């Protein structure tokens, strides 16, 4: 079951905005202060460029899945090592989304909420979505996408009047070093195109329009920039104390109620978007596990993913602090390699393979000619 180009564009769009509206803006502010907007902007543009590198690779793969494609270019050993790396990257994203969702639901939305009540139906839902395949995830993304977009714009515009533009000035006061530092530390929140590795062989390029993908990427960047502009302009120096960007903006713009009624709807829709992303990256883990261990069928890999989710939900909080993994050089290196090195490596490997193939072809033709001459 393949997804069409439009659905892929929407999935890219959702992936670009999904992780950006909880703790990330406040974390960025710690290092890069009022220049955090630029950190997000630069990394998202780079992510956008890599979408096209991956699309190019997808076309070159000639309908092969990522495992077959990498195996043909890099050989089986390196392919398996890369699959492990990708699983780690996806596991980080899944861990981050589930952690973000957990704290958002338990601490921000409800008081004394039993996480168990939330996580079990969510796990069943995600298991079902993985079971149904990527097209199902793409369709759900299509369904919720515009509701989320309208909601986010509504929240941003509602609070826009409270923004103090002066708080963004002066720009680049401390040079570019804080920007680079911040980008490196929080790079694991980006790399939004990595899910596309598992889409190799699952995309129908019949109705391909590059402009469509460009539009969705630009739109995602603009929405994130708008929300961040409002967030940094509203909270200024107190930004690092706001861990729930989306709800804090809506809370601040409605003075006399916790969150007004419409914002509740938006926040709820946004939780749906997070669940879809959770399903997408869980699907990616399941797929990568299938390739890695040559598992046939979906059930075993789904069970492994479910167990991982369960582990994050119940053990993660007490035994391993998410921050200890997610904000370490370990996470940054994994994301950097998976998102920014791997596609280039594959491009180079494919080019070398092509050159070798051509050389072989020329050599064969020459041999044939020599044989003919000899005859």
């Amino acid at each position, binding site marked *: 079951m393949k997804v069409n180009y439009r659905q892929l564009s929407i999935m890219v769009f959702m992936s670009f905005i999904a992780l950006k509206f909880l703790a990330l803006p406040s974390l960025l502010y710690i290092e890069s202060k009022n220049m955090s907007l630029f950190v997000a902007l630069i990394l998202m543009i780079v992510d956008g460029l890599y979408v096209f590198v991956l699309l190019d690779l997808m076309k070159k793969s000639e309908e092969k899945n990522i495992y077959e494609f990498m195996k043909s270019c890099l050989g089986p050993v390196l392919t398996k090592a890369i699959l492990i790396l990708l699983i780690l990257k996806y596991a980080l994203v899944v861990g981050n989304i589930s952690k973000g969702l957990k704290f958002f639901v338990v601490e921000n939305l409800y008081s004394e909420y039993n996480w168990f009540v939330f996580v079990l139906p969510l796990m069943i839902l995600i298991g079902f979505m993985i079971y149904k395949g990527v097209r199902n995830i793409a369709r759900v993304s299509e369904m919720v996408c515009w509701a989320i977009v309208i909601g986010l714009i509504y929240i941003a515009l509602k609070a826009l009047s409270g923004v103090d533009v002066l708080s963004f000035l002066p720009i680049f006061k401390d040079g570019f070093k804080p920007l680079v530092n911040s980008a490196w530390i929080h790079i694991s929140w980006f790399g939004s195109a990595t899910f596309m590795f598992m889409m190799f062989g699952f995309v129908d390029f019949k109705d391909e329009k590059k402009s469509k993908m460009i539009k969705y990427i630009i739109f995602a960047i603009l929405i994130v920039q708008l929300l961040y502009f409002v967030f940094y302009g509203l909270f200024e120096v107190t930004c690092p104390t706001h861990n729930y960007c989306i709800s804090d903006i809506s809370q601040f713009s409605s*003075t006399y109620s916790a969150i007004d009624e419409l914002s509740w709807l938006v926040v709820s829709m946004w939780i749906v978007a997070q669940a879809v992303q959770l399903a997408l990256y869980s699907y990616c883990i399941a797929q990568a596990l299938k390739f890695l261990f040559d598992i046939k069928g979906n059930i075993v890999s789904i069970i492994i993913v479910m167990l991982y989710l369960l582990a994050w939900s119940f053990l993660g909080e007490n035994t391993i602090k998410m921050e200890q993994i997610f904000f370490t050089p370990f996470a940054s290196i994994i994301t950097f390699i998976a998102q920014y090195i791997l596609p280039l490596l594959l491009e180079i490997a494919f080019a070398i393979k092509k050159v070798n193939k051509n050389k072989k072809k020329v050599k064969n033709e020459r041999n044939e000619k020599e044989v003919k001459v000899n005859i």
Partner: protein
Amino acid sequence: MKEMKKKLKSIFSPKKLVLWLCILILIFTVPSFNKSAMSQTQAIVTMLCVDKIDDKIKVAATVLTPSQDKKANFQVYSGEGETLGYAVDSVSLAIGKEMGFAQCKIMALGENICKDGVMQVLDYMTRTKKVGRNAVLVAFTGDVLDFTQAIVDLNLGKSLRLDKIVSFDKRYILTQDSNIETFYIGYYSPISLGIMSKVKLITNETFNSIQVGSNATNSSGSSSSTTSTTNGENNEKFIMNDGTVSLFKDGKHYIDMTLDEVKKANIFVNNAQKGTVVVEGVTDHIYNNAKVVVNILKKDISIKTSFKDGVPIYSTDVSLTVYIDEVIEENPSEKLLRRNQDFLTNALIVKIEEKMESDMREIISYCQNNDVDLLGVYKYFYALENKKFEEYLEKVGIKNYLDGIDYQIDIKVKSEN
């Protein structure tokens, strides 16, 4: 293995997943029928008033008790302790319920706690007790319990409520939110200036002595509550909002601004669109030594910063669109009754501009004398002239930077027509 896979497939088949979901819903919902209502274990606090009396923290909370007749039932409870935590716990102990602050929309801080510093209170309430940062923040005078009781009476009266009063302040007087978040932003800014509305608790004797709206230039817009009787005595307590605004430096109460001063400061603020200017002694072909009240319809402010010979220049261009509200004259000329005539004469415009400039100069002096940056001078220079301003700050120091600035004012008045 194959059989196991088949079994798993059949367990997770879409049809059976729905069944699983139903079972899960039953598992989670049925046990909750047995639980007591949250309102029986948690008190819904809607407002918390805090003050310090003789080294002890005293708190009073309004607790909402849901009732069947749909009428909000507020009760006031108070407690005290060596720390805020102990004081809050003592209230919990008294009512036998945990204090739930998720719905706490108002935090009122008494005079003594304001003098000692409010940051610890705000930190405890927002971090530990999870009071929303959009909770209205007001300073108050008077006894904690009496103040809280008077607020409850206001709420029962429906027509007047503290949050509405502060909301009015936001639109017309303070021109910014008076809540925990804005206070934090002010506190953590380089000039550490926090602002909040101040409401007063007065007795009926004091209330009767106040002249409400005695004249247009110096009106003290006061609002009163329904009466409240405490201790069975005829000692009525009123809430009065006279537009006073409290300024805090480093989290401690520093100075109070009167309504008149706030209005003058608002001339510099673009958010404060409404306003009144009163000029006296206008004489020309229409007016004869008239006192004219002019209402501001629209205000455009442009603030520019520059440096000349190392001196920072803060120039404010104000463009006002006005209409004439009242003309007070002993023997009004019949010209005043003529239609199709522009009553905004040149003489009047000059008078308005003079008055506005003198008001603005007054507030600049107020800021310099009291070392409070109400006009956002620091922010403008830091943002727009960063390097030069930092050099200037190094020379004069952060405490005296307001004094060495050249304030230039340009006012243009035009008629609504």
